[in-house]
């Protein structure tokens, strides 16, 4: 059985159900990436040029192990082979395909990315960057509830569009929320897919979403409110914006290993020059995020700055 999906502007064929992506209604179109079950070698064939605690890579192949879940071989930016550990649910294997293997494949294709959620505002992408646990998804959900379609939730992959304008390649239509946030938001957990049986994190699929590539209009960097910082939204100048962009690169080790830092810096310079950048400092609290979403929405409606 083959399933057909679309993400980051790529047409994907997979023998495994993948929950996070857009379903592709044109299966006749040639696939950019094929995903299939198979044997993943214990070691990389050929010359290993970099390795980490659970991964190694050659010029065009990458093997990564997820303990007790499985192993993934990512080749030439167009093929992923996965081998599940015994008794592991397909759901878990698919989750790490999405979360780990696809971002590695993107880097093999020389695409750089930010760790961000994103929504569409007035035809442009607004990115919400931040470290794990800073509330990107909660804020994205609040903005989606205000009518701004979801573009991405974990990985914002960037390409240069016409005139060198940085653009976001949409990831998928769903937002991931932890159980506690989900309930505070008023969702019933039974209506949503849980990501793993050992983690009460859910895929929220009932939000408006867009699968169109969009120029990046603004980037907000989420920072937890801790002294001596004060809560609020502050505009960043270009120099500080570049610093924050680098801090929020997706998988910086990959950028280094794959020699993509120069490309990332170049992309960061383009984003600093052509997009509005802000820090958003707030407490990790669902209600506070909702208040900020209201403020952002009002600003966009009133000033039309995006």
């Amino acid at each position, binding site marked *: 059985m083959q399933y057909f999906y679309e993400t980051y502007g790529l047409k994907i064929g997979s023998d495994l159900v993948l929950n996070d992506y857009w379903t592709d209604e044109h299966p006749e179109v040639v696939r950019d990436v094929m995903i299939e079950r198979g044997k993943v070698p214990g070691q990389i064939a050929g010359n290993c040029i970099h390795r980490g*605690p659970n991964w190694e890579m050659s010029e065009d192949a990458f093997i990564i192990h997820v303990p007790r*879940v499985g192993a993934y071989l990512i080749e030439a930016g167009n093929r992923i082979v996965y081998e599940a550990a015994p008794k592991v649910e397909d759901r878990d294997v698919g989750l790490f395909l999405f979360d780990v293997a696809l971002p590695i494949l993107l880097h093999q294709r020389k695409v750089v990315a930010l760790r961000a959620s994103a929504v569409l505002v007035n035809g442009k992408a607004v990115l919400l960057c931040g470290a794990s646990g800073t509330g990107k998804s909660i804020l994205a959900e609040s903005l989606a509830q205000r009518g701004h379609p979801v573009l991405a939730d974990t990985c914002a992959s960037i390409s240069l569009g016409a005139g060198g304008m940085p653009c976001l390649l949409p990831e998928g239509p769903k937002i991931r929320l*932890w159980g506690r946030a989900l309930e505070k938001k008023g969702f019933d957990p039974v209506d949503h897919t849980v990501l793993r049986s050992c983690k009460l994190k859910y895929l929220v699929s009932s939000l408006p979403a867009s699968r169109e590539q969009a120029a990046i209009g603004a980037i907000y960097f989420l920072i937890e409110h801790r002294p001596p910082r004060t809560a609020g939204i502050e505009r960043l100048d270009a120099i500080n914006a570049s610093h924050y962009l680098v801090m929020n690169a997706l998988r910086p080790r990959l950028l280094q290993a794959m020699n993509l830092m120069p490309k990332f810096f170049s992309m960061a310079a383009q984003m600093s020059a052509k997009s509005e950048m802000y820090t958003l400092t707030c407490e990790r609290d669902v209600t506070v995020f909702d208040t900020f979403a209201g403020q952002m929405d009002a600003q966009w409606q009133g000033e039309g700055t995006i």
Partner: protein
Amino acid sequence: MKNLYWLASYPKSGNTWLRILLDNLSRPMPEKFTVNDLSAILTSTDRRTFDDSTLLSSGLLDVHEIEDLRPKVHVEFAQVDHHAAPHSVGHHPGDGEFPQFTKVHDAYRYLSDGTPLLGGVRAAKGAIYVVRDPRGVAPSYAHHINVDLGEAIADMANSEMVHRDFKDHQRRHLPIIYSDWSGHVASWLEQTDLPVHLIRYEDMMSDTVSVLRKLLEFLDWQCSEDQICRAVEASRFETLQAQERKSGFREAPNPTFFRRGLVDGWRDELTKAQIRDIECQHAKMMAQLGYVPLNTDI
């Protein structure tokens, strides 16, 4: 291998204060230090280090999956200089000639295949272990995690104590297995992988300069008496407390981190029954460390 040492303790035992002292030793002008200048913390359970190194999102892994990888992550951190990563900014003790310290609250444990969770000799040159009278730890720990004293004392007696790993939301740090207070101390002092330098919080309070001087010998870190005295002066508890009152402390989960700083503050914070409970639960280790029980029948 990097010049790397674990800065180990049970929570609320003076680890942060010692970090500040060491941080100030490596500063050219400790007099200008304020508490929010403290170098970005390196911890054994830092999510970002783990995620960057493994390319995985630790938030999607359970505690066993994380622990399978932790020894390799710690070894890699010590052996390879990948972690001059783009996010690694600012001043760190450990830059250049100084020793580098990683804060750790984990008990010293081994995985089922015998691998040390913290990577053993390949991940650090040694450890500094800070211990504090458990009667002093209890009120401070209760305040820190915002629970009542009874719950804190029960946590300190629980040999399977896991630093609350929740299924429905993500904590800032990876899950930590503390063990009970006595077990935590024993795990570090009795392991034979690494040399350990033991510091009693109470000694650090009463004679900071001497404690620091002995520690520097252990670390083979050359500092002048002037450097030591200036670092101690800049790290006085009352000074840090005043700075926190004025502008807060970014590492504090509660409004006050530098709370009382008294060696025997527990005498007016614990009930007689609570003191007896702690002294019964930890009698052997307290005796080993020279903490005299109030209850002479224990």
